[in-house]
């Protein structure tokens, strides 16, 4: 189908486009920017007056909960949520049930996702079998099945020798190792940042050194093995500092943070709000500010939703017993826009953290709108204010610390491979 | 002693105003005179917090400084707890003598519905079984809602329900009455 997106403000950080430009799409590809190719006949015209047109967002971490946790969410519900959030590509961690440690499971997931065809799904394979941190998975086979990297999700490898070997092996084939830095023993049984709030509320703490010690170990191992490392969900000021130093020294390392941690601190736990039970824990204001600065100066490459749909029953228990995680696919864009407006970051720089940077980390030719590129496009209204409520979310996960908050930025259209996969109904739903 | 229940003073046609209030000090002297003949070896005075307690304090020198005496705060026995909650300024009841076998003179300032007296009697019985209870008040303003009435009152002073009569103390301890009219 030929689509003409007209009168929109186009932002494409990779091509340094930030102007009013029309886009022309044919056969799933961008065929023209600014002016139509010869003989182009639009079958559909999308009026993007007062809207921003940008590459579809790329989310580095979204749990779709399949297989194994279909009572929390299904592929279908979460891919719809992704489309509603303007996300056209997402990486999903391997902590499903069963764990994504066998090629067959990955193929099945890819196949299911492709059938639904709402967003591109890029699975991360398990780095070790069952995520147990003991035996390596068949990384080559898994890559062939569709894995774009290898991860331990939230379960850190305790045995440093195993981690060393896993990184050596991944480095052999040039695979990226995705690690959330957390020293197991220091974080053991912890549920909140080991700071003032945890002390007051009597919650077991996870100290900042649990992250920095792990980062130090991982970076030394990366230096030693030459493995490409992506550090997931940084949460501490000192952690950002370590990455900044490593990058200055030329180490091949990237990192991301979740949109939750860009805005929230330990104080948001309030009176034991289980929606603020997250991994890693919400940290101090100083940490939050350092994450914000790190994201702005590029030390932190990307911001992700860390989308983790949790069913109500798993949250309707005391704070420590509540399952960690929050819904996020539909909040990634507005929360990133909120950050940009609060920190006076140019919109294109913010969008780069959601498109160009994550595409690079995933090794994808995506996240830009050049002639010939895949027509994965997000069209949003930056002035559309809406209230985050259970009923306003498509995801099956309704729990988020931002419930009740009003945010600006609502996706109007999401195009995947040149087809409109999501269009906001006039009533806003 | 006349043990028949006094009539509930009927609703007055022309309710008194603050200008026509009697002198509380004179009423107090009259109350003391009425009580004197009732004092025996087994008498004990119990004042209901707060007006009744003030009266007991000043009655003691007149009736016998060595009389056993105490104070009741009926907060824990009130029947309006469910609707009004616990009185914020409750204070401990103090009955430092054995209630068992004593003839109790129960003293309050203004008698109205009888509900406070009901609560006070219930509380007294939780301390022991008195030989008798005699209710004496400074003013009976009428309007009782229970089959309870003072045997002794210095003054029968019928008021309407929108009026509120209070016993108060000057700084030097002298009593005076205040009448408040509820604004409809």
């Amino acid at each position, binding site marked *: 189908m030929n689509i003409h997106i007209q009168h929109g403000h186009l932002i494409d950080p990779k091509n340094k486009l930030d102007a009013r430009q029309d886009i022309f799409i044919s056969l799933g590809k961008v065929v023209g920017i600014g002016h139509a190719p010869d003989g182009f006949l639009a079958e559909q015209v999308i009026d993007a007056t007062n809207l921003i047109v940008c590459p579809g967002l790329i989310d580095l971490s979204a749990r779709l909960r399949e297989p194994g946790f279909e009572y929390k969410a299904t592929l279908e519900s979460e891919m719809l949520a992704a489309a509603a959030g303007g996300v056209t590509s997402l990486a999903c961690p391997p902590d499903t049930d069963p764990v994504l440690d066998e090629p067959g499971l990955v193929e099945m997931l890819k196949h299911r996702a492709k059938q639904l065809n709402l967003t591109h799904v890029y699975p991360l394979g398990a780095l070790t079998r069952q995520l147990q941190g003991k035996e390596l998975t068949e990384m080559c086979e898994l890559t062939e099945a569709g894995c774009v990297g290898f991860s331990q999700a939230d379960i850190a490898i305790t045995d440093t020798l195993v981690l060393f070997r896993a990184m050596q092996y991944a480095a052999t084939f040039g695979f990226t190792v995705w690690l959330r830095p957390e020293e197991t023993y220091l974080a053991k049984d912890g549920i909140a940042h*080991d*700071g*003032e709030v*945890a*002390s*007051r*509320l*009597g*919650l*077991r*703490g996870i*100290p900042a050194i649990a992250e920095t010690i792990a980062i130090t170990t991982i970076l030394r191992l990366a230096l030693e093995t030459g493995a490409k490392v992506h550090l997931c969900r940084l949460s501490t000021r000192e952690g950002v500092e370590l990455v900044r130093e490593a990058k200055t020294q030329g180490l091949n390392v990237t990192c991301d943070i979740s949109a939750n941690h860009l805005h929230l601190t330990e104080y948001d736990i*309030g*009176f*034991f709000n*289980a929606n603020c039970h997250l991994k890693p824990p919400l940290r101090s204001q100083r940490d939050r500010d350092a994450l914000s600065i790190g994201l702005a100066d590029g030390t932190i490459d990307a911001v992700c939703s860390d989308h983790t749909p949790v069913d109500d*029953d798993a949250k*309707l*228990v*005391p*704070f*420590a*017993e509540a399952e960690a995680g929050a819904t996020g696919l539909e909040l990634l864009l507005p929360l990133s826009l909120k950050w940009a407006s609060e920190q006076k970051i140019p919109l294109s720089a913010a969008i780069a953290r959601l498109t160009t940077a994550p595409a690079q980390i995933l090794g994808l030719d995506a996240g830009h709108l050049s002639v010939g590129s895949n027509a994965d496009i997000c069209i949003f209204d930056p002035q559309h204010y809406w209230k985050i409520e259970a009923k306003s979310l498509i995801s099956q996960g309704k729990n988020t610390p931002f419930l009740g908050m009003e945010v600006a930025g609502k996706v109007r259209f999401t195009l995947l491979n040149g087809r409109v996969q999501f269009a906001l109904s006039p009533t806003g739903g | 002693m006349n043990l028949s229940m006094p009539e509930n003073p009927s609703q007055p046609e022309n309710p008194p105003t603050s200008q026509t209030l009697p002198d509380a000090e004179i009423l107090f002297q009259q109350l003391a005179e009425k009580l004197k003949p009732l004092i025996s070896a087994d008498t004990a005075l119990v004042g209901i917090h707060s007006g009744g307690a003030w009266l007991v304090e000043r009655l003691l020198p007149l009736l016998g400084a060595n009389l056993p005496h105490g104070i009741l*705060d009926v*907060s*824990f*026995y009130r029947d309006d*707890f469910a609707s*009004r*909650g*616990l009185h*914020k*300024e*409750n*204070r*401990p*009841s*103090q*009955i430092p003598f054995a*209630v*068992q076998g004593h003839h109790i003179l129960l003293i309050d300032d203004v008698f109205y519905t009888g509900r406070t007296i009901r609560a006070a009697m*219930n*509380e007294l*019985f*939780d*301390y*022991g079984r008195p030989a008798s209870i005699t209710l004496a008040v400074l003013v009976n303003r009428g309007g009782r809602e229970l089959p309870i009435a003072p045997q002794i009152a210095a003054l029968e002073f019928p008021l309407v329900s929108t009026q509120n009569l209070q016993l108060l103390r000057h700084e030097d301890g002298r009593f005076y009455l205040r009448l408040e009219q509820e604004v409809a």
Partner: protein
Amino acid sequence: MNNPQLNQDGQLKHLLSIEGLPKAILKQILDTAESFVGVAEREVKKVPLLRGKTVCNIFFENSTRTRTTFEIAAKRLSADVLNLNVGTSSQAKGESILDTVNNLIAMHADMFVVRHSQSGAAHFIAQHVAPHIHVINAGDGRHSHPTQGLLDVFTIRRYKPDMHNLRVALVGDVLHSRVARSEIHALTTLGVPEIRVIAPKTLLPVQVEKLGVQVYHDMHEGLKGVDVVMMLRLQNERMNGALLPSAQEYFKTYGLTQEKLALAHPDAIVMHPGPMNRGVEIDSAVADGSQSVILPQVTYGIAVRMAVMAILAGSTI
């Protein structure tokens, strides 16, 4: 953020934590408790305030001692009392906390006394029960044990009425202690100017000084001139391990003996929330000595719990 313990009129609706309660409410509870102290000394130790009400003790974590004091308090207010040791029944069968609570509400329970091993459990229940239900926290994880904190300050006030001129030392395992947190909040709210915590670094929460206390690691230094010594209980499982090497060494460094107590003010009182580990945190000679007010604490505990229940039951929706 609304204080979940207060209703719209600022009345106490639940007692979940001392933190965040205004001084006026703390004083109201303590003053009312004074009235209840007398009730226990009467022929009939009951008042009819909670007649017809049902108080339900739900203990997800067993504690016969605390449950008993709440039970006595409720019964002295003429309430009917239902005891449920959930640790041994429904939860073991997989029933959720809210299911357990809602079942009891369906049986017309009016007030819940809750103990749970997780911090925040009482808040959680209070946030999810029907508006006419009152919740009292009888200890949640390491977070709070407000009635214990209140009875401790009640005891202190009885012996040392001038709260604005006091030095109080808390000794021992502050890290795991909900009692310590409650005491600290109660003391600071009531205007006690100097609160010290004395413990090894392994038994102190991070940034404990932000609670308004001064930190001491040396007991001899910390006890100098204090008016109140509050000993904290050390759980058995923490005596040998990564937190402490042994009970013997702990007693030597942080156990309260006559000799160490002599460093405090001569009129200092000694308190302990119980149950005591004699010879671990406190020497028997001190526990049973003339400065100990450990048994009065227990007595006052009932009056304080009666006061809390009476005030809660009297608050409007």
